[in-house]
């Protein structure tokens, strides 16, 4: 079994800027290879763990909340950085994204590669539609996500012949 490219748009479109993850998924739909797995998630950790296999390349896109914040600022995190973001997180709903990655790592369920593209949101109140700051950042965020997707496909293309556990193929 070879790996896939899995893209996860995290967030809730009914909480304004939190909906940026799903919005990017729609925006990249026409720009990426057809075998890209595009999916959205409400952030529930166990369901997220189910979205990838260990040999997949995973791209996550979501809105974050920072104090002090700079709405519209784009951030790109690698797996280890995203995991460290677990420290001090205080999600109201099960575990935060960082804790989800930390849980995946503790259970040896991290994907082969992971990148998180995030944008700092300004408005997480009830309702649909992005704030001006996030709307302005959307094209660049989408471009970065599409780039990561293409890069992930290239990596997979070179890594043909991998074993199912995601490790490099070794002769018996």
């Amino acid at each position, binding site marked *: 079994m070879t790996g896939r490219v899995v893209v996860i748009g995290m967030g*809730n479109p009914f909480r304004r800027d939190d909906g940026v993850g799903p919005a990017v998924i729609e925006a990249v739909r026409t720009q990426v290879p057809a075998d890209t797995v595009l999916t959205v998630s409400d952030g529930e950790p*166990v369901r997220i763990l189910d979205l990838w296999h260990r040999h997949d390349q995973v791209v996550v896109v*979501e809105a974050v909340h920072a104090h002090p914040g700079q709405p519209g600022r784009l951030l790109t995190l690698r797996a280890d950085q995203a995991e460290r973001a677990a420290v001090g997180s*205080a999600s109201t709903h*099960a575990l*935060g994204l960082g804790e989800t990655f930390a*849980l995946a790592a*503790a259970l040896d369920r991290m994907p082969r590669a992971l990148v998180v593209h995030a944008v700092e949101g300004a408005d997480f109140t009830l309702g649909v539609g992005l704030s001006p700051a996030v709307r302005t950042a959307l094209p660049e965020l989408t471009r970065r996500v599409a780039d990561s997707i293409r890069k992930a496909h290239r990596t997979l293309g070179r890594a043909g012949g991998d074993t199912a556990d995601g490790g490099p193929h070794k002769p018996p």
Partner: protein
Amino acid sequence: MSHRGPRVLRLDALARVEGEGALRLTVNDGTVAEARLKIYEPPRFFEAFLVGRGHYEPPDITSRICGICPVAYQMTACQAIERACGVTIDDQLAELRRLLYYGEWIESQSLHIHLLHAPDFFGCPSAVELAREQREAVERGLRIKQAGNAVMEQLGGRAIHPVNVRIGGFHRVPARAELAPLAERLRRIQEDAVETVRWVAGFDFPEASCDYDLLALQDPGRYAIDSGTPAAMAAPDSPGSDRAGPVRRFAVDEFEQHVVERQVPHSTALQSELDGRRYLTGSLARYAIGGRWLHPLAAEAARAAGLGDPAAGAVVRNPFRSIVVRAVEVAHAVAEALRIIDDYEPPPRPYVELPPRPAAGCAATEAPRGLLYHRYAMDADGALTQARIVPPTAQNQAAIEEDLRRVVQTRLDRPGAAATDEELTALCERAIRNHDPCISCSAHFLDLTVERA
């Protein structure tokens, strides 16, 4: 608390985002004068914006109240509307609904057991550390939870905020063959569910007792999930007693005469009293009220776990042991889900038409966290003129506050080193998580203010 500093915050389900709790403890001369839990309760907003919507809409709209138990809201909304329309959904459609609801029980209860509650018993700050220490148990919990997800995805159309439910039944019902893989999956986790009961039964439980009335649905012959009438077991005569108290029942139409909500200044959530008394809903109440009708497999697991004999009306009043009762309920839900699939014949039509009429209807079901009540009134065109939602967390708030008062008092009374605020915070978080309120989802959620006079 750490969340005042820089952090990455996940914002999730529509109504849960403000779900952080705050607790104010007032201690006078070493005595806890008051424990006030401040929670944010979104169903109130839903009551307002349901008015004027069509009578077919409450299942979809109210399912948004909770990302963890949307099915509870859907099932209760459907039944309330159907009662207003004078229609009863029975037979295979009712069984399919129950199957979906068991999927949610399996998912929600095993999430709470393994990722949220169990870390407390190992002194782990979160599920991440627990996964390192107790990997096998956490893996098992995830397998169980995923089987619950699979049930919700198959019947609900998707795992979060299912879209296949409608008043009168489902948009589409599965063929027998479509349920076969689900049965296979559930069979594979049946032993996992029983093993989980064994695992949690071995935890160390602090001494504690909730001496309140216990309220759950009772449906003789069945461990009620979406049927039966409200039944209340009186608090024990002597504190700490595990003896079953007398049970009084009332029709669900009389719910609002018995359960009275009142506003309290410290919370946007209303607080409930049952006939003027403090009470608790949820797993402990269900076990006391309906334990004798648990599936034999679950009943056997309960006996082996030291919960007494449910067939003889055993009662568990130690809130720390609620994790064991939840595990028993998961075993029950898995066994019952399998039974439904084995007996399943596709109903002749996926739903029953429900023409509107000027009427009101109410219903109650057992959400994972406890009894959930809905009432709707509609006009001749089906436009809703009234909506009332009483969620379990609001009902349990007064009992949780009393638990908090007791657990802190017990600690303050203990001789030796004085308790730090940090220790009290951890203790209070545990006491709250015992009842799995919505706010307990967070690993660290509590802002504690201690006023010492």
